[in-house]
């Protein structure tokens, strides 16, 4: 018994010593590493303050005693040899910094493969990480699967890939920082540059074991490794810095980095690049005015987006060397140079137009020559699924940002979600169910009084339930759109939808045009009538051309679809204001003419001035093309889904209905007395003007050219928005009223001026003639 208890005691002592020594070893790995790292940091600093303070070999020896992997011994010996060299150069320090990282990675995986998870965790915890590195998966896997031999290879692969990803990101960041240093602070220290150069170069030379564990064949993952540009750049660096050689070396490094992107990653990055290029000018415009930063956050966003764009481009370049070889050799330099110019222009706070042009040029180059597109490829149903998923994810991120009071991020994410929705989902929903499409769109913007939209909620810095409800509403609308688009469009439904679109969009244009033509009756107006008709035919032709070009033109224009619509709409409003003026002018001149005809038949109709003719040609064109352009956008997405033939049938039927309606309006107009007809026309024009102003305000708000201030407690059904241009925002309600104010003012002005002119002429005429004329007019016109 005594013997047994002695054995038991001895075993306990043994177990305690084992755990104690393990704990000490663990503590030593981390403590020794931190001590060594501190010495390295201090040595670099001392070098730059013209002192010489070298890390002691003792610290490294302590650290290296625990190294187990055979390959790390070689690296450790190299470091030890370097540390024993005096004085230690900046280059050597840079090299040691990078090699230490590789040692940590090799030891981590070696420990993991030997089932020593605590040691693997220690080495892993020491590895330097980029700021937003994703390290969660590795931590969880080490904890959960670390001791399962069946998962050993998979875990090694995960850890190796993680390490390669982290260090690749760090290399890019360091290259970027070096680039900025040489550009922004020309008095940089050459020693510092040497240290960083060697560190980056060494870091990019990943040990082959890491590729092996990550299951990446080194030769396939990257082109043959070369150090030519590195040596060319480094050799004269102790004397001078050569920007061209730096650029060559940078390119060589980027080429040598492993391609860790999957096809899906590449696709997402390509689309993100285009989206960022679209956002950069928008942010910049909001942040800089006359060369001064007006909104620092917006400016910083523009800077960040540009930097991100370059980083994404650098990530994509290695894959493009295989997939877009020709485009890259032809336009690669131009692309990177233009992006550099954009970055410089932003740093120099140049004119926003310049920024827009540069961003647009890059975007066009990417789309035209590198075949990048924001539109997804593949089956329509897959595209919809993917887009809905992306919009949902962006909205969730936006909500999270808003809840964390990161309002700027929340707004950017909302904008990205909206542009993604607009491009693929709204475009497809609109022809099928405009009410739903607009409701969903509203929910991204100002929403309704009962439920403010996301933009309104973010503008108001809403919190809690108010904020989450705004997002919930949009997500629900998105789901509705998703459900609608899941159902394939039958030919009958496509024809019906086309007829609805043509009728809806054409009605306004035809009513106003027919009314005007009816008002221009008589041989005296023949010339003007012809001009209006010519304008209308021209618009129809342009619409047909727009539709014909839609596959190529609208795809490239789709980014600007709403902006173009907004511009066309504002032109239409201007033309309509001119026409309103003209109608009033006409009403009073008609009355006056009637008097004159009764008096002396001496004065002729005052119409026919050049601006009127131009305005009427414009009206013919604008009233048709305003709707024609919109119709082209709608029909394009229908053609994508139902085919040209089906949509063509719908266009013919819809066109027929519109022609009939036009004829009816024209016929009614022709039977009305001339002055009554003008009054009728005037009312129509004014009402359409109000609709135009309302919908134009809405478009301006949609593209961000006007703010949105929702009117609480005012609910307006969506159909009133579609047909009457009524939307519940202060701008949307007040600006049409301003339009009415203008019309009323013009009405009074024309009335007063014509009355004054009448009086002047009447003063020159005998009293009895005037009385007789008045009595004849009153009997004939009332």
């Amino acid at each position: 018994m005594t013997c047994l208890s002695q054995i038991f005691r001895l075993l306990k002592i043994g177990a305690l010593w084992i755990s104690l020594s393990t704990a000490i070893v663990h503590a030593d790995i981390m403590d020794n590493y931190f001590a060594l790292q501190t010495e390295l940091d201090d040595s670099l600093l001392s070098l730059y303050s013209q002192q010489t303070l070298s890390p002691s070999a003792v610290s490294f020896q302590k650290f290296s005693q625990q190294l187990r992997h055979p390959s790390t011994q070689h690296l450790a010996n190299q470091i030890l040899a370097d540390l024993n060299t005096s004085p230690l150069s900046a280059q050597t320090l840079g090299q040691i910094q990078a090699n230490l990282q590789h040692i940590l990675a090799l030891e981590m995986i070696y420990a993991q493969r030997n089932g020593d998870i605590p040691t693997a965790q220690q080495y892993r915890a020491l590895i330097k990480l980029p700021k937003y590195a994703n390290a969660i998966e590795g931590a969880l896997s080490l904890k959960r699967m670390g001791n399962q031999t069946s998962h050993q290879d998979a875990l090694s692969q995960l850890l190796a890939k993680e390490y390669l990803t982290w260090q690749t990101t760090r290399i890019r960041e360091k290259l970027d920082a070096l680039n900025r240093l040489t550009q922004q602070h020309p008095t940089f220290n050459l020693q510092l540059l040497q240290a960083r150069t060697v560190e980056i170069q060494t870091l990019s030379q990943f040990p082959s074991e890491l590729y092996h564990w990550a299951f990446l064949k080194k030769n396939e993952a990257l082109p043959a490794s070369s150090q030519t540009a590195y040596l060319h750049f480094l050799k004269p660096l102790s004397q001078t810095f050569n920007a061209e050689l730096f650029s060559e070396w940078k390119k060589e490094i980027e080429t040598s980095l492993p391609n860790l992107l999957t096809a899906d990653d590449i696709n997402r990055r390509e689309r993100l690049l285009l989206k960022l290029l679209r956002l950069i000018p928008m942010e910049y415009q909001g942040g800089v005015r006359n060369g001064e930063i007006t909104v620092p956050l917006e400016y910083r966003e523009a800077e960040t987006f540009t930097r991100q764009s370059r980083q994404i481009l650098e990530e994509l370049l290695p894959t493009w060397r295989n997939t877009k070889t020709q485009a890259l050799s032809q336009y690669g330099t131009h692309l990177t140079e233009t992006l550099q110019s954009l970055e410089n222009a932003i740093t120099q706070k140049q004119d926003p137009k310049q920024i827009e042009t540069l961003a647009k040029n890059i975007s066009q180059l990417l789309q035209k020559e590198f075949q990048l597109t924001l539109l997804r490829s593949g089956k329509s149903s897959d595209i919809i699924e993917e887009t809905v998923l992306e919009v949902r994810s962006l909205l969730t991120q936006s909500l999270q940002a808003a809840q964390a009071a990161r309002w700027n991020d929340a707004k950017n994410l909302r904008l990205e979600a909206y542009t993604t929705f607009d491009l693929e989902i709204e475009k497809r929903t609109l022809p099928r169910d405009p009410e739903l499409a607009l409701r969903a769109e509203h929910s991204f913007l100002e929403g309704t009084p009962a439920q403010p939209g996301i933009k309104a909620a973010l503008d108001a810095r809403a919190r809690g339930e108010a904020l989450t409800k705004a997002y919930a509403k949009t997500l629900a609308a998105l789901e509705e759109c998703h459900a609608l688009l899941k159902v394939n469009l039958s030919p009958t439904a496509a024809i019906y939808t086309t007829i609805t679109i043509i009728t809806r969009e054409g009605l306004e244009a035809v009513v106003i045009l027919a009314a005007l033509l009816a008002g221009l009756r008589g041989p005296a107006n023949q010339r003007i009538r012809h001009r209006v008709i010519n304008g209308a035919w021209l618009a129809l032709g342009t619409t047909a051309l727009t539709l014909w070009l839609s596959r190529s033109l609208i795809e490239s224009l789709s980014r600007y679809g709403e902006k173009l619509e907004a511009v066309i709409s504002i032109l239409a409003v201007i033309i309509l204001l001119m026409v309103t003026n003209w109608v009033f002018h006409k009403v009073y001149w008609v009355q006056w003419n009637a008097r004159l005809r009764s008096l002396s038949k001496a004065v002729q109709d005052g119409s026919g001035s050049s601006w009127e003719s131009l305005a009427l040609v414009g009206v013919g064109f604008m009233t048709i093309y305003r709707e024609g352009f919109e119709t082209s956008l709608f029909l394009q997405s229908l053609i994508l889904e139902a085919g040209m033939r089906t949509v063509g049938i719908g266009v013919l039927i819809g066109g027929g209905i519109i022609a009939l309606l036009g004829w009816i309006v024209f016929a009614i107009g022709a039977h009305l007395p001339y002055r009554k007809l003008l009054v009728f026309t005037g009312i129509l024009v004014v009402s359409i003007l109000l609709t135009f102003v309302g919908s134009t305000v809405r478009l301006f708000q949609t593209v961000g050219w006007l703010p949105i201030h929702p009117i609480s407690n005012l609910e307006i059904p969506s159909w009133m928005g579609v047909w009457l241009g009524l939307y519940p925002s202060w701008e949307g309600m007040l600006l049409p009223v301003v339009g009415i104010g203008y019309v009323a003012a013009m009405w009074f002005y024309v009335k007063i001026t014509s009355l004054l002119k009448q009086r002047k002429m009447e003063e020159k005429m005998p009293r009895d003639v005037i009385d007789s004329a008045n009595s004849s007019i009153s009997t004939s016109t009332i």
Partner: protein
Amino acid sequence: MKYIYLSLILLVACFHPIQAATDVTSVKTYLVDTVKKIKTASTDLVKNAEAYQKIIQTYKGNYQTAYQKAQPEIQKLIQAMQDNYKAMDSFGYETIEAIVAGVSTLADYDIYLDAGVPKADGPENVAPVTLKLSNGKIIDQEGSLFTYLIEPALWGGNPRWCIPLDLNQDGKIAPRESLPQTEFILAVAQDVDQKITALLSDARAWQPTQQDCFSALVLMTPTLSDYFEDWKESRYSDSTSGRFSAVSRLSDMQGIMQSCSILYSAVHNKITTEDKALAKAIKIGFDDILNFIEKLQQKENQGKITAAEIDELANQAKEKTDKLLPQIEQGAALLEIQIKA
């Protein structure tokens, strides 16, 4: 037997938590205690601002005459108000900023007191500070109380809040040579006192959780690298914004690090149970940054720093701070704690 004792002692020493055992309630205690100290300072600021106004009013609002006749009293009060400010902000609020800004129920105080910008720099993060001065003037959303209003007023950083005066009577008025406007300084003092009272009440009502601590850490830790970036830029070219005059930016960095460190200490032991190495690395990471800031302060005190040193220091700071966020996220994931958005 003595080997067993020795082993046990060493074992205890090795596995003993790095810091005294703390939990989330200690964060609340720290927060409330610090806000109480800030409150004392803000109450004093009101008193001193009232006394200052009284002196100026005695001379019918003539600052020049008042300064000539009551220079020692005015200088003493200005010094006292500057000390109140430092106690409130630099050595007070900055040491709890990561907690206030990082906890969603308290985050609005950060915008109001410290981080909010003027409406001209908006629309993001505009401080909703609107003050009605006793002379009828309205200060409408001109920025946060500490950064844009009180500090520039007390150190002459913004001429709109000050009366330029030839204080040293050398025949010219140098930049920042001024006295704070009495109506303005009293109004901001009263407002900050009210806001601190409200913060104290909300801090007392706060029920801290581990999720709160992790969420605040995830939100606030990345800001450290921005601080270092700001420091680097300001070392390359001295800022003339009129702000950040009271104490060095490094002191603010130290403050925010301290509050991040307090937050971390509340979750350290929990992480240790899941991944000892990770917990230790984060702990050492925070300590390392605090030491690093001290090193920076020493360098600044020594005087000249070369451009290469600035860049290297900023580079080292970036490496130290960048690492922390992913590590904290790993800790939260291991504990299955969802980071609050």
